[in-house]
């Protein structure tokens, strides 16, 4: 290789060298410095869903950013006003579709608070169990998609591999892999099947090693660190001002976790830590999620052992509230329990009428309004539910954590390079179904 003029070590590469002189504007003698306004999304492989970012760019630097949302607006809130209270669960569960159990839990707790009923103890333990499993799957999706968007495609495959094990457990328990409608007002629909304890045991043994694998792969990976450290920093005060909750808030040092500060479903009786970091950048949020997965696994283990000691019903006994159908596993799968069918079809006319009325119209909830918050994997998920005394909700408003967290995006990426947008959004981990509802 011959040493030419351009190979001098330490000489800065001047892109606007001699050749670019011809680009000067003849009138002013200056180079034109314009900013570009560019659209990123809504269809984009790396914007974590149908999110559109309107960017004003000076070269590679983002000067201004405006997120445009609404590309997944589904009218969930209006739809719930035309369906019964139990059917509302199926709508609400599809808002934040990566963590459906949190939506269901928030809504059902709100309806139960309006009704003024307590769910059975076993139902609470099962609720905690599935919600924490959901937290693990949600963080795995965050990790997998975040990795894929940054170019680490093997992280995608590993993350979804673990998720498949948990999806299998969900399918065994609820019948569906996603959008389960398993938690309903009054408890949960069905008790755990026979193969669930074995699968849970296998999961609890398997997952710690796999999480160690992620840490080995990513924690000290130079590319991962380079792209995530110092990127998308948000201070604690700014987080609180913007209403950011969840892992982004905890990664900035604020130990706010609704499971500890406003416990529900018996969370105060479980032993787990709130993970916080101080740096507030994308790497800190990644570490917070990994550690939260371990804490969730601790809770899953405790809930699992507790299940054996809390026998009992999983749906409230009150015939005016509890979901009427009794399901059991027959020779051809899960179906209506033959004993219950015999009761309503052959023994008692009143029971049949009651069953019919409850299934078609559903529970009647006394008038009032409540606001119930749960700690979803993305932050504080609030359900504002208003009843006017009928068998339909009057208003259901979902305060979604991703909706509020996305407001922080301009703060995160203004002044940064385009390439920093991707880890910024991946570290906030928005789910557009919740954002747009």
């Amino acid at each position, binding site marked *: 290789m011959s040493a030419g003029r351009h190979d001098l070590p330490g000489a800065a590469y001047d892109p606007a060298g001699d050749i670019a002189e011809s680009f000067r504007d003849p009138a002013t003698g200056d180079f034109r410095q314009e900013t570009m306004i560019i659209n990123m999304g809504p269809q984009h*492989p790396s914007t974590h*869903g149908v999110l559109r970012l309107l960017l004003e760019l000076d070269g590679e630097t983002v000067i201004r950013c405006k997120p445009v949302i609404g590309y997944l607006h*589904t009218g969930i809130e209006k739809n719930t006003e035309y369906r019964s209270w139990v059917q509302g669960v199926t709508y609400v569960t599809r808002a934040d579709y990566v963590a459906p159990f949190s939506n269901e839990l928030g809504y059902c707790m709100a309806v139960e608070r309006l009704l003024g009923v307590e769910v059975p103890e076993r139902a609470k333990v099962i609720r905690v169990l599935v919600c924490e499993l959901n937290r693990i799957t949600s963080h795995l999706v965050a990790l997998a998609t975040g990795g894929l968007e940054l170019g680490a495609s093997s992280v995608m495959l590993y993350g979804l591999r673990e998720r498949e094990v948990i999806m299998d457990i969900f399918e065994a328990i609820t019948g569906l892999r996603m959008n389960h409608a398993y938690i309903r007002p009054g408890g949960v629909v069905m008790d755990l099947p026979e193969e669930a304890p074995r699968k849970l045991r296998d999961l609890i043994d398997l997952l710690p090693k796999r999480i160690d694998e992620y840490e080995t792969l990513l924690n000290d990976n130079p590319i991962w660190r380079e792209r995530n450290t110092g990127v998308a920093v948000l201070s604690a005060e700014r987080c609180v001002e913007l209403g950011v909750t969840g892992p982004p808030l905890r990664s900035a040092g604020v130990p706010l976790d609704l499971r500890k500060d406003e416990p529900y479903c018996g969370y105060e009786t479980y032993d787990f830590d709130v993970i916080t970091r101080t740096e507030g950048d994308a790497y800190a949020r990644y570490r917070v999620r990994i550690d939260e997965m371990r804490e969730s696994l601790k809770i899953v283990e405790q809930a699992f052992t507790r299940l054996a000691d809390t026998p009992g019903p999983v749906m409230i006994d009150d015939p005016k509230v509890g979901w009427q159908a009794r399901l059991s596993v027959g020779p051809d799968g899960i179906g209506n329990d033959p004993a219950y069918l015999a009761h309503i079809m052959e023994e008692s006319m009143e029971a049949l009428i009651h069953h019919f009325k409850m299934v078609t119209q559903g529970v009647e909830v006394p008038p009032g309004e409540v606001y119930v918050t749960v700690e979803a994997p993305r932050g504080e998920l609030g359900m504002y539910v208003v009843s006017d005394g009928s068998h339909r909700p009057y208003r259901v408003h979902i305060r979604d954590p991703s909706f509020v967290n996305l407001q922080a995006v301009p703060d995160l990426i203004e002044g940064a390079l385009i390439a920093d947008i991707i880890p910024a959004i991946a570290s906030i981990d928005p789910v557009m179904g919740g954002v747009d509802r």
Partner: protein
Amino acid sequence: MPVERYEGVHLGTTPEEIEDEVERGVLLTTMDRAIGWARKQSMWPATFGLACCAIEMMATGAGQYDLSRWGMEVFRASPRQADLMIVSGRVSQKMAPALRRIYDQMADPKWVISMGVCASAGGMFTNYAVVQGVDTIVPVDVYVPGCPPKPEMLMYGILTLQKKVRTEEPFK
């Protein structure tokens, strides 16, 4: 190209027409099959994940239900490089023009799988915000029902589409 003449199958009257016919009949049957096979063998989907079905689509592409078995794990971000659009998820009124634009940007031949009931018919959301079936905007080849469809269901839909593509006759 060597051409085999079949006795008694001529429908044309002039020698050129007959020549044409026979050529088409023999050569292109084989061509049809070859092209159909090649097209279905490695269809590249465009990344068009919208909602919950997108998560199941990702799961279908991941390790356990491997789309790579059919050469389809390469989700192309640019629609110009893709030949299959899997509309996975509810299409809101705001997203519909973008969807049509992506479809228009794909080069022929292109196919559309409508994954899930929301894309096929509006799903449970029969309201102001959701397009009641993506086939009101783009022509759909295969509808995969489910909310969301399990990865096995999506794979069956993809295999059905591949069968359709394989037996499609592009020169007729």
